[in-house]
């Protein structure tokens, strides 16, 4: 059982000041990543998943994004990343924690050759000569299965397809053998057959290098194929966490259940209407009182709109923040799967 904590995020709050008011994008997020595991953060647009992972590598605009919270902390191997000076942080970013982004077309520098972009990381973080950096860049390109790497290394991003650019991004990210790879919607912009190739590539690299991977996505299929543990985010908070099996087969939060039910499955036949959640996520400038999901929740009770639910533990680290699990909650009409005891 691998259980050595690599990265820990504690009580993370992030707010952005905008002209309309302060957006509380992340409101008390905790999680930890173990060596070699894949942790998925799932949620819809605007739930704060990207902001959360960007704060780990300090990529948020410092003038508008404020990280706060009691006893807030982001620790990598015992070292508090929040208290690092920018110079020290730049030694972590790209070297110990690397990140790949959703849109490979806009994340690479269009005026730099592919080889130079990969080599740049090596020149900055490792004590290598330019010649050596180029050689390693070539090896990396081959490692991520770019055909004709010898020619491709001198080409520019516009000469690559989206899938190929994502491979280049991955090559850049793994150049310094990071302990953690953050993949923010790595396949969302890609076609399914290319997506399958990229997922396969990330999985293989992770196995070979024993990297911890934080996967941010809204695609439950991708999550099912990659994640060991899953955190479901809604309106800046983690509403449920658990292993992949716990989340998929025994969800304990109505939002998780709704997400699972609203995607049609290839293995199912056409049935009558797809389950759909009413309404839209709340405005995070004025987050609702109580549970933020209550306005859209079909099982919402009085208490849900007054007080925030605290997490209920279902064994292991399967946890759900929902009042339904309170002993006094009225459980009539609630689907059995949400209440079922986990064995």
């Amino acid at each position, binding site marked *: 059982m691998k259980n050595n904590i690599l990265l820990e995020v504690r009580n993370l709050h992030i707010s952005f000041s905008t002209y309309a008011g302060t957006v509380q994008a992340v409101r008390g997020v905790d999680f930890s990543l173990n060596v070699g595991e894949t942790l998925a953060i799932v949620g819809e647009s605007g739930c704060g998943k990207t902001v959360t992972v960007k704060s780990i590598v300090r990529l948020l605009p410092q003038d508008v994004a404020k990280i706060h919270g009691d006893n807030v902390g982001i620790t990598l191997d015992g070292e508090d990343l929040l208290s690092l000076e920018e110079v020290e942080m730049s030694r972590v970013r790209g070297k110990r924690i690397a990140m790949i982004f959703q849109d490979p077309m806009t994340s690479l520098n269009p005026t730099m050759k592919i080889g130079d972009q990969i080599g740049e990381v090596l020149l900055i973080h490792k004590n290598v000569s330019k010649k050596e950096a180029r050689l390693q860049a070539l090896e990396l390109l081959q490692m991520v299965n770019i055909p004709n790497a010898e020619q491709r290394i001198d080409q520019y991003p516009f000469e690559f397809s989206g899938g190929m650019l994502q491979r280049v991004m991955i090559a850049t990210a793994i150049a310094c053998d990071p302990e953690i790879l953050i993949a923010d919607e790595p396949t969302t912009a890609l*076609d*399914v057959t290319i997506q*399958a190739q990229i*997922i396969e590539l990330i999985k293989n690299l992770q196995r070979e290098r024993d990297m911890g991977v934080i996967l941010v996505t809204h695609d*439950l299929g991708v999550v099912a194929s990659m994640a060991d543990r899953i955190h479901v985010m809604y309106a800046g908070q983690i509403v449920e966490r658990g292993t992949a*099996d716990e989340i998929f087969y025994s969800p304990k939060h109505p939002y998780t259940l709704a997400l699972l039910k609203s995607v049609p499955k290839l293995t199912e036949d056409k049935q009558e209407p*797809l389950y759909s959640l009413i309404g*839209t996520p709340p405005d995070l400038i004025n987050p609702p009182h109580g549970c933020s999901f209550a306005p859209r929740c079909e099982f919402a009770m009085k208490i849900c709109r007054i007080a925030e639910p605290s997490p209920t533990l279902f064994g292991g680290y399967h946890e759900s923040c929902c009042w339904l699990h309170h002993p006094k909650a009225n459980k009539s009409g609630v689907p059995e799967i949400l209440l079922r005891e986990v064995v």
Partner: protein
Amino acid sequence: MTDRETLLEVRNLKKHFKIGRKSIVKAVDDVSFDVFRGETFGLVGESGCGKTTCGKTILGLHKPTGGEVIYDGMDVHALDSDRKKDFTKIAQIVFQDPYSSLDPRMTVGDIIGEGMDIHHLCKDKGEREERVFDLLQTVGLNREHINRFPHEFSGGQRQRIGIARALAVEPEFIVCDEPISALDVSIQAQIVNLLMQLQREKQLTYLFITHNLAMIKYISDRVGVMYLGNLVELAGSKQLYEMPYHPYTQGLLSSVPVPDPRIERRKETAPLRGEIPTSINPPPGCRFASRCDYAREVCYEVMPPLIEIEDEHFVACHLMASP
């Protein structure tokens, strides 16, 4: 399924775009299929396979390079201007991007009402307003939204406006061009349910274009799979998903990650190798040959015809023609 009526006939449709002096993009190349009244016909494929061009050419938004589109007995591309206007009342489209397909300077009321004005569907202002109210309600929006502008709405709401706009002229046929791919999962379900409900209530026929394989299985009666401008397989959606014959369809279906960890862990098929080649000056023969594990000599030379290998199941592959 015997008493079905063919509403739309697409016959050997071709749409080529010239780029530069010598290069031709064969976006749609010899595609034929029928759409029956009241059904949802799904057109699925990866980006660049020509599915959107196909949809737009069917509606007359592009002039075809060859072939014809027969809608209810009339040749869509040979209509005079009056008849063409009539056709825009019969056939409508919902676009992919709800952000760029609504005029930012028009109010919701005018966006929805414009089509009614053009076709003189309302006697006076009052009736127009009433009908716009009705449409807003039909798609799940409120009366108060009539004087607002598109930027005041979320993606899902804009897509609802786009649907209301299409419905305003009471069409019988709607091309839905990736209407849900720009939306979040929970919102996708809302829009799909809305489209299905409208289909039932108004007996609409849909041509549903998407790259989302799970969704298209869910909503379509029949599905056509496109690859690089060609239709490679066509079958009832259940048949297609249970028994795909074309190697591309097989690869495509096994690439979709299923939201079920146990199934995913058991999955052992290797993903389809390579990428879609460019559709500029494509080589002769089967377009998929360069990525196909079973490709033989003939595949690189002759384009395989679409043949019916089972009842209502068409495949364009040399493997199926002569095993």
